[in-house]
């Protein structure tokens, strides 16, 4: 546990040691606020629905940008050899790195708090979906980040890691969206909707917290972190 925290803290601080973190947070806020306020006054509805509904697509690009460095950089610099020859267990490093990106994402999301505050100031929104939206965003973001960490462990090139992560998360997002579902035989529709990254987020976002949705995201996170661990261990395969 101590090792996980040590790695978490080093990685988390690492985000703020470079301008990446600030660029990331600012572009997230500018982009989401712009998209949100573009429609907010037109629709004249005191709700954050339109903010949350674009998150799956915003995360598609932003989460891979957060995680692309985590393993690729270590491989490129060779520090992975330094790290993995210290008395640390593989899973501790995997969890520490994931946790750092996860907390970073939460910090970023919390920076958007002025948005619900504004909405509450000008109207009288239903608070349930706002809580639900944030909670869902944490879990969904975690799933994107786990995919991103795994992608980063596959290569020493950050750009390649970024693209693999977008590709994987896009695939997992799109299979649950109408675009794909429309063309499927009816029997497969519930399966694909269930597997898609977005549907569970929408369901949590309605303010109804169903354990299935939470379990879905935790399983996706667990699955990709497991693959991440395998990929770190793969140097030892014969």
């Amino acid at each position, binding site marked *: 546990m*101590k*090792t996980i925290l*040590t*790695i978490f803290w*080093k990685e988390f601080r*690492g985000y703020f*040691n*470079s301008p990446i973190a600030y660029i990331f947070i600012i572009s997230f806020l500018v982009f989401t606020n712009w998209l949100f306020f573009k429609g907010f006054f037109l629709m004249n509805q005191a709700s954050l629905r339109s903010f949350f509904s674009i998150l799956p697509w915003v995360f598609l690009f932003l989460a891979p940008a957060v995680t692309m460095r985590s393993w690729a950089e270590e491989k490129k*610099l*060779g*520090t*992975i*050899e*330094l*790290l*993995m*020859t*210290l*008395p*640390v*267990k593989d899973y501790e490093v995997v969890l520490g790195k994931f946790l750092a990106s996860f907390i970073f994402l939460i910090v970023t999301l919390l920076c958007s708090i002025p948005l619900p505050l504004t909405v509450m100031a000008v109207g009288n929104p239903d608070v349930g979906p706002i809580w639900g939206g944030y909670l869902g965003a944490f879990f969904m973001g975690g799933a994107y980040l786990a995919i991103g960490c795994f992608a980063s462990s596959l290569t020493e090139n950050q750009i390649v890691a970024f693209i693999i992560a977008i590709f994987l998360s896009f695939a997992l997002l799109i299979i649950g969206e109408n675009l794909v579902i429309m063309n499927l035989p009816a029997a497969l529709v519930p399966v694909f909707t269930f597997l898609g990254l977005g549907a569970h987020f929408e369901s949590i976002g309605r303010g109804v917290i169903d354990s299935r949705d939470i379990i879905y995201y935790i399983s996706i996170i667990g699955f990709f972190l497991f693959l991440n661990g395998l990929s770190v261990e793969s*140097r*030892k395969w*014969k």
Partner: protein
Amino acid sequence: MIEVNNISKNFGPTQAVKNVSFNVNKGEVVGFLGPNGAGKSTTMRILTCYLPADAGTAKIAGFDVATQSLEVRKRIGYLPENNPLYMEMGVLESLHYIAALRDIPHAARKEKIRKAVDMCGLEPILSKDIGELSKGFRQRLGLAQALIHDPDIMILDEPTIGLDPNQIIEIRNLIKSIGREKTVILSSHILPEVSATCDRVLIINRGEIVGSGTPEELAAMAKGGQAVHASIRGPLSQIQEKIQSLAGAREVSVTGEDNGITRLTIKTDPGTDLCEEIFFLVSRNSWSLSELYRETITLEDVFRELTREG
């Protein structure tokens, strides 16, 4: 302290390490010598549990590198090839990070870091970022990171590569002082370095150990006898004839002549030293001697001999 038994490692079709076995005793400083790509780094990576061996076993301080990896890793300090460092971190920050991952208790951490900083002379750069450091300081920081937990065993992969001569001497002295208390394996392809720092040398070529011993023993292993070079003023034919008749002289060849001084190379039987004999011969005949020296076989010759491309 370190026991390696018949380890082998393949990367696809290339055999990087073939049946390598050796032992290192407590307190020894052993040098791994070999051309680039000979399998030095791979062997070190196996010993530090970064890569597994395909066959064979290795034990460090009694722990098997394959099955008791954490115990092994606790007991070694490792400087990987090219000294990878977290460039964006501060010097002190990275030492704290390594110390924390080494599970050095919080109370002892400052003290241990101070010791490593003193030993490696990092005081002047403590507040800098690693990215700003010169190569010499980076190397010292790498060493400081490797010895922060005061390990019994240190494995250093090319600790002086890419440094200038002054820095090489500094690092070499540092390694010597480390070697007084610890068991050290270091790899290098710079020969004077190995003979200056190591008690014993293992020469490795194409994944196999081709020679092992003290630098002196290895020199003695080199094939062929020794040679003596002499420059003598006097009648050429007489000189050649008389030297040839000395016991132990195998072959006398004239390598040059100017202003009446003849330069000769005398190959001798192994173990015989003709220098004195030649001096007396010259003085008996009232010739004059302007140069007389024995060719010393350097580690370099041994290395070239043992690692020559077949």
